[in-house]
């Protein structure tokens, strides 16, 4: 598993807030993704109706997941492919390695796969003497920098072009050292040329899957670069990494959800390449892989089924909730400390790495509700985060100070007389602290919180006191 730094969320976030480069990079999100999504959604009058349907499709599929997966497997097998079932990350890694060994593979190209990140496949392959090459430009950049992704659809969003140039100069030592690399266009051209060689030399191509289609046994990838396609069509073997909740019933159903995916993610009408792969190459085909493997990974998903968190399994990884989240926008993805950041990560990560590790993430929210309002799959993200907060409290994972404060409050709140008395003292004290301006600039025990805000002071008498007076 990728090192989990989620327990250090608070420190990570503090560091991120003063990282000037990161803050500049995060600034691109608002005028990019956010505006374009708004425009794309407004242009399709049926957008919200499609969201309702997409939710229904996934709810129905998740309720019948065993049946749809079995049907998917049957179709893959009929079309000449192989399905491998894996309970956890370790089983998935071993399965990939077995396929690599059987094919005598030395080098592997990879299309972007969040499941690949989740099972930390690259490190594992390297340790076993196989060279994994990420081919999505963003993934390639962070692979060279030896970092995890900081965004689920724009993995290198935290990196600026000077840092990319630095990484390329360090890695591509066979190129002239004095070549100009100032412009993004030059960087892209260099990556294209370097990766072309890798595509052509690879023995195995590994992609993720945005969807699996039960009706046909197809796997679907959605990209803009075309790297996923070169990854899967040039090598002899195509391996698809997919978690079990990716399945949908029919081509019609995937069409409905595809109308939401690009618009929610990048604000495009449609991504450039949407590719449906069914089995290995056919007898008279001139290109395509000779073997087709699909790895179906559970890794914690089945534990969410049948609970309120089943709703999270509708997620299509569009990234809209990250793009619209004020907390993500302030601290970026690495602060969350694992593979999935932002609101979707705050809900998912505790299930995949344990709530004890990820207990801070559900707190990394202002509950403004923006994520839920843009989620194409209508996932109630704030509600699910609240449930995780409750669970953290019940499992005594929250901080002693917070527990103490809550216990004290509940003691007082359940005793009306005591409550009135304490409230009266508090109101008077705050009123006198507020002085003539009636404004609080400082509060004991809340220095950090008050640093950025002022608060109107109470006038000195509680609501209950005023109520009693007027009732007279």
């Amino acid at each position: 598993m990728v090192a989990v730094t989620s327990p250090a969320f608070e420190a990570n976030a503090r560091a991120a807030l003063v990282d000037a480069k990161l803050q500049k990079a995060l600034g691109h999100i608002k005028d990019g993704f956010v505006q374009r999504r708004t425009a794309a959604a407004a242009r399709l009058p049926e957008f919200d109706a499609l969201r309702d349907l997409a939710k229904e499709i996934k709810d129905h599929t998740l309720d019948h997941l065993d049946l749809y997966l079995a049907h998917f497997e049957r179709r893959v097998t009929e079309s000449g492919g192989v399905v491998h079932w894996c309970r956890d990350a370790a089983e998935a890694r071993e399965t990939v390695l077995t396929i690599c060994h059987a094919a005598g593979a030395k080098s592997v190209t990879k299309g972007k796969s969040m499941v690949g990140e989740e099972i930390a496949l690259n490190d594992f392959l390297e340790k076993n003497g196989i060279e994994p090459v990420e081919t999505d430009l963003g993934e390639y950049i962070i692979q060279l920098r030896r970092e995890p992704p900081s965004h689920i659809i724009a993995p290198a969003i935290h990196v600026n072009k000077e840092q990319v140039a630095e990484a390329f100069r360090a890695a591509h030592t066979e190129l002239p050292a004095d070549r100009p690399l100032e412009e993004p266009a030059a960087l892209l051209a260099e990556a294209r040329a370097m990766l072309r060689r890798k595509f052509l030399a690879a023995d195995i191509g590994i992609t993720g899957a945005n969807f699996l289609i039960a009706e046909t046994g197809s796997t679907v990838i959605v990209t803009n670069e075309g790297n996923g396609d070169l990854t899967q069509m040039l090598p002899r073997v195509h391996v698809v990494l997919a978690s079990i909740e990716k399945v949908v019933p029919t081509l019609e159903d995937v069409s409905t959800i595809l109308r939401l995916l690009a618009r929610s993610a990048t604000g495009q009408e449609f991504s450039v390449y949407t590719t449906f792969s069914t089995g290995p190459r056919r007898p008279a085909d001139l290109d395509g892989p000779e073997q087709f493997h699909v790895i179906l990974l559970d890794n914690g998903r089945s534990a969410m089924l049948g609970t309120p968190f089943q709703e999270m399994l509708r997620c299509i990884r569009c990234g809209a909730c990250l793009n619209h989240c004020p907390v993500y926008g302030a601290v970026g993805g690495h602060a969350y400390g694992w593979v999935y950041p932002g609101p979707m990560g705050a809900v998912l990560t505790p299930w995949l790495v344990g709530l004890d590790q990820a207990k801070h993430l559900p707190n990394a929210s202002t509950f403004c509700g923006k994520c839920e309002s843009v989620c194409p799959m209508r996932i109630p993200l704030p509600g699910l985060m609240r449930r995780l907060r409750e669970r953290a409290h019940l499992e005594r994972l929250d901080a002693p100070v917070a527990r103490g404060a809550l216990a004290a409050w509940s003691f007082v709140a359940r005793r009306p007389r005591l409550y009135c008395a304490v409230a009266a003292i508090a109101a008077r004290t705050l009123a006198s602290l507020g002085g003539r301006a009636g404004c609080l600039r400082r509060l004991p025990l809340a220095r950090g919180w008050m640093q950025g805000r002022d608060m109107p002071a109470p006038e000195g008498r509680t609501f209950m006191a005023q109520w009693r007076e007027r009732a007279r």
Partner: protein
Amino acid sequence: MSAAREAILSRLRAVARETRAGAAAVEARLADRKPNLVPARARQPRRETIDGFRRMAIEASAVVRRIRHTDDIPDAVMAILRSENRPARLAMAPDAMLEALGWNRAMVEIRSGRAEAHDEVGLSVAFAGIAETGTLMMASGPTSPATLGFLPESHIVVLSADDVRGAYEDGWALLRARGGLPRTVNFITGPSRSADIEQKLQMGAHGPRNLHILLIDPDAAEPPGDR
């Protein structure tokens, strides 16, 4: 790994709600394949559908050139090679219609087959066009290698106006009528691009920098030509 298979499936069965519709409903849904909601823009009359395809493809940065007849293909292709300053070489899909055209083989070197690493220009025939987003639907097969659309720097695609449909669902219906899915169905909407460096959009990431669509549209109202 069949132990894992049993473990996962039995877990899924164990947590399944008792109120779920069950196996019969699943089979029915898989057999029925009813389109869900198809947007109004994908349900237009024929002429609007063809023009809508063209408009959306151009918006996605494809270059659309309308021609009257398949016989016009060689001239249109040569014009593209010249305008892009390409060597007179072409990797062409081994498609009977393309092969039968009056190519001036003294002027252009044509290799029929899949694309290779050094190919600069690939020529293939679309299975269908989807108007709602200006998307080409490519079906791989012996006469339509998928590499032609990804390895070369320029991809030229012939699309007959008769094969333009409104919605993705219409494309699936066509394909099912032809006998099911090939190894690869590529939906292609414009040329390759990336915004992974500082969120600045750049064309020509790993796939083609240029996507040309030769739309065979004999009864277009305006005179044929670029864009």
